[in-house]
């Protein structure tokens, strides 16, 4: 049953329940005006709702009843028992039909003329009242007997059908909220309990039930979260009407296309998005879409298209609003921005078209020359952006002149539970919503440069000079660690502004149930809410956009452009001064490799290295990579360090004895002729260092990571092979195939299997069932794990050849 219909049924029933008492009371006293009104409203609503659906019988009935009742209300007719009876009969019939609709049946064929006729006033006066009454009750009885006649079959059928149909009830939102906060509290109480149990140590009698409680609770929480969710349809529902009204008011023709109405969103979130979305639509129709004649002249369809699509991607919902109107006028926006002092002429010249377009989100910019009824002047796109950002979302715009505009909104799924990070400063903890966090860097490392310029701190990270706030300063606390021991949390605001927040240390991250704070605490403009730690103590959630704003870190348009310029110059400078990773290789040579090539530094056990005819390889994170830099005949012991290098497609490992430092290559590079693997020699801190030639290195040894091309292994089709052998084989990096027709790069056969010719083009591994059987056929005992793994590895390096 579709949702609208279900709503209709639910509403009708609800009203009926509410007015049942009234109907009885009205029967007792037909002159009672208030009761009459209630019943009138009921039939009126039913009539109105029927208009949406194709229920001619229902519509006819309710219409007739409404007519009769409105006569009474207007005083044209005196209510009498005949009328009351007839109306009651009509209501009964409506209920009967609604039942049928709910059960998903066709409304039975039949005529309601009898009932409708009974509603007609009888002009003959008093004498006929009795007969009419009789007739009405007769009808009523037939109606009922009809009911009863079918009820024997109908009742079980209905019940049966109901089990298939989703039953729904309506609940007050308050109640839902209470249940929801109750469950959040339960989660917190559970966390508290978990904490205490951990402290008390292992207690099997308690741990079991506690585990169960945990599972149940997480189930309930899931269900509750879903309860909170609402299809975005409820938001979309009102839009066609809005578009119709607006376009006809403006003499335009606009068609709206809605997509993704089944995407579910937090109920509160839907409410928050409603206004911004409406505003964007108003703008699109008012300013974006042209008059029909203009459109025709431009070779477009007369009817403008406005399309709104919702998608869920991860824990975000993206909403895309596109129109095929005239697009944003970058020149006008630019001119306006200059004239209102938002940017300077020269800034504007340096800006890309997208940047200029993004200016529409700046306060004080409206390109509408005339103040229109529709978009007005007061509330602009800046408010839209503020509102979207307030809930942790983002908004972008792109547009092509003459072709249309696209708004791209991203909004988080839910408001109240967010992923967050706990940081510590002084001896206090605070939470930061995860969505802002770009990166976490410890200041002791070399990848980050921390300087003080006047009283302002700056960090330079990856060539970006970023303003830095000390959380202790912001909050008026004292850092408990020295300045060079801070941890920097790089934060990116929805506006794109980047800044670093210095904290003492990072604690943990997890889901935070955010609760509101009292107004007196909110007045500090520092906190967005509070959340409880596992131990039940509350901590404050930082309101980062607000903190950034009060500290002057949120750009107006001008600042962000200036900063962009800076970025470019610093990154240009970055290109100019190349950086390299300094290390000592296994031959004891001090060498360096360009930093861009190094993906990360890996440490692995020596036995992960495997030497075969065509070179060395090592397994890192389940990926087999070519290995360079180990001496020919030496097999190192213990652990080996590698530089994992990548040219974006191929990767290789370079074994190093010691990793030194990242340095700048600012001395002269002297090319070397005799060793092709060395690009040049250079001086670093007064020592000669050989700079590896990345090109030659990758040309010789680069290989795409093995993982992408997993070899296949054919296994016999037995339970033992599937359940015992299979996991071992896939752990060795093979994909398993089986079956008669399949063929693998490697095949394993059992000596008790009747399959002689194994399905493979490559190596064949034979397994035997007895440990001490004859070893001449090269078979491996089937529980000789090492032998088997070794054979698989050999086969793999063969297969990779």
């Amino acid at each position, binding site marked *: 049953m579709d949702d609208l219909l279900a709503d209709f049924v639910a509403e009708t029933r609800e009203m009926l329940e509410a007015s049942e008492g009234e109907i009885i009371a009205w029967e007792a006293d037909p002159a009672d005006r208030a009761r009459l009104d209630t019943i009138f409203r009921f039939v009126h609503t039913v009539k109105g709702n029927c208009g949406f659906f194709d229920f001619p019988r229902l519509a006819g009935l309710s219409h007739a009843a409404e007519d009769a009742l409105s006569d009474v209300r207007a005083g044209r007719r005196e209510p009498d028992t005949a009328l009351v009876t007839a109306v009651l009969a009509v209501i009964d019939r409506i209920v009967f039909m609604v039942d049928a609709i709910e059960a998903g049946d066709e409304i039975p064929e039949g005529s309601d003329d009898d009932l409708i006729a009974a509603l007609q006033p009888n002009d003959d006066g008093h004498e006929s009242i009795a007969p009419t009454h009789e007739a009405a009750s007769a009808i009523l009885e037939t109606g009922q007997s009809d009911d009863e006649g079918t009820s024997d079959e109908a009742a079980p059928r209905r019940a049966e059908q109901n089990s298939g149909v989703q039953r729904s009830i309506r609940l007050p939102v308050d109640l839902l909220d209470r249940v929801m906060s109750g469950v*959040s*509290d339960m989660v*917190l*109480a559970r966390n*508290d309990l978990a904490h205490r149990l951990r402290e008390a140590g292992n207690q099997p009698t308690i741990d079991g039930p506690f585990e169960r409680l945990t599972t149940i609770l997480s189930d309930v929480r899931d269900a509750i979260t879903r309860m909170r969710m609402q299809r975005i349809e409820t938001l979309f529902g009102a839009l066609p009407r809005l578009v119709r009204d607006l376009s006809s008011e403006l003499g335009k023709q606009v068609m709206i296309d809605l997509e993704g109405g089944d995407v579910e969103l937090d109920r509160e979130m839907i409410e928050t998005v409603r206004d911004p979305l409406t505003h964007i639509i108003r703008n699109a129709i008012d300013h974006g879409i042209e008059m029909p004649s203009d459109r025709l002249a431009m070779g477009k369809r007369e009817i403008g298209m406005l399309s709104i699509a919702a998608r869920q991607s991860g824990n975000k919902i993206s909403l895309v609003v596109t129109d095929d109107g005239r697009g944003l006028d970058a020149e006008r926006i630019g001119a306006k921005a200059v004239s209102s002092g938002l940017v300077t002429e020269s800034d504007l010249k340096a800006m890309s078209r997208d940047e200029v377009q993004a200016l529409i989100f700046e306060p004080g910019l409206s390109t509408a020359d005339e103040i229109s009824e529709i978009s007005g002047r007061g509330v602009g796109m800046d408010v839209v952006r503020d509102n979207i950002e307030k809930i942790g979302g983002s908004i972008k715009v792109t547009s092509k002149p003459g072709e249309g505009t696209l708004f791209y909104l991203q909004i988080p799924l839910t408001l109240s539970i967010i992923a967050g990070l706990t940081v510590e400063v002084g001896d*206090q903890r605070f939470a930061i919503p995860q969505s802002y966090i770009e990166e976490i860097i410890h200041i002791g490392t070399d990848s980050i440069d921390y300087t003080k310029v006047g009283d302002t701190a700056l960090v330079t990270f990856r060539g970006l000079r970023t303003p830095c706030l000390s959380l202790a300063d912001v*909050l*008026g*606390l004292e850092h408990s660690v020295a300045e060079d021991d801070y941890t920097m949390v790089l934060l990116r605001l929805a506006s794109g502004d980047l800044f670093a927040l210095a904290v003492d240390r990072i604690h943990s991250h997890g889901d935070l149930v955010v*609760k*509101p*704070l*009292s*107004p*007196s*605490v909110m*007045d*500090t403009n*520092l*906190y967005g809410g*509070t959340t*409880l730690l596992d131990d*039940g*103590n*509350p*901590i*404050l959630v930082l309101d980062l956009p607000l903190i950034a704003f009060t500290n002057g870190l949120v750009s107006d348009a001008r600042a962000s452009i200036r900063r962009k310029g800076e970025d470019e110059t610093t990154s240009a400078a970055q290109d100019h001064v190349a950086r390299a990773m300094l290390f000592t290789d296994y031959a004891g040579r001090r060498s360096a490799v360009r930093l861009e090539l190094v993906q990360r530094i890996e440490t692995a056990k020596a036995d992960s290295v495997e030497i075969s005819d065509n070179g060395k390889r090592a397994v890192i994170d389940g990926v087999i990579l070519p290995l360079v830099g180990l001496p020919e005949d030496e097999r190192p012991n213990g652990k080996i360090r590698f530089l994992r290098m990548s040219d974006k497609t191929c990767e290789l490992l370079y074994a190093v004895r010691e990793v030194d430092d990242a340095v700048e290559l600012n001395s002269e590079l002297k090319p070397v002729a005799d060793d092709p693997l060395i690009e040049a020699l250079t001086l670093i801190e007064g020592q000669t260092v050989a700079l590896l030639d990345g090109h030659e290195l990758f040309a010789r040894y680069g290989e795409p990571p093995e993982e992408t091309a997993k070899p296949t292994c054919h296994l016999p089709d037995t339970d033992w092979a599937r359940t015992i052998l299979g996991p071992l084989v896939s752990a060795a990096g093979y994909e398993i195939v089986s079956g008669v027709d399949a063929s693998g790069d490697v095949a394993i056969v059992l000596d008790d299997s009747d399959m002689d010719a194994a399905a493979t083009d490559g190596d064949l591994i034979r397994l035997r069932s007895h440990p001490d059987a004859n070893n001449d056929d090269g078979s491996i005992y089937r529980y000789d794990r090492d032998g088997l793994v070794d054979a698989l590895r050999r086969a793999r390096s063969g297969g990779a050849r």
Partner: protein
Amino acid sequence: MNDLMVMVDIAGRRCALYAHDVSSVIELGDVTPVPRTPDFIAGITAMRSQTMTVIDCRLALGLDTNDFPTDDRAAVVTVGNHPYALVVDRIDDITTSSSEPGTVSGGFGPEWTRITTGMTETASGPALLIDLAKLIEGPESFGQAA
């Protein structure tokens, strides 16, 4: 008249709260301080996973804390949908009021006048009836108003 009152002492003075405003009396556990808030906001605390703002009533009146020690119990009241825990000298008893709140000639002094709706007679003597909304506003807004 004849309302139930929770009698508390604030800075040595006898005060009364309407009993139906006080949802519970709690043992105050750890209070997380909230940096950059006015003094009278002692911090936030959680009780049965409900977070509440802790108000030091002495400071909310602009009085010195040293002179009047408090005990570790706090009265929980809800103002504007937010729960607050009021730290007072001590929480005494529940009595009934025997008069409508009224004023006395000469007033109660500016600090006290701001946070009270008047004096009420109770079974355990006269007490100032606290205006909760005014109390949690703290002395700042008083300063602004003056």
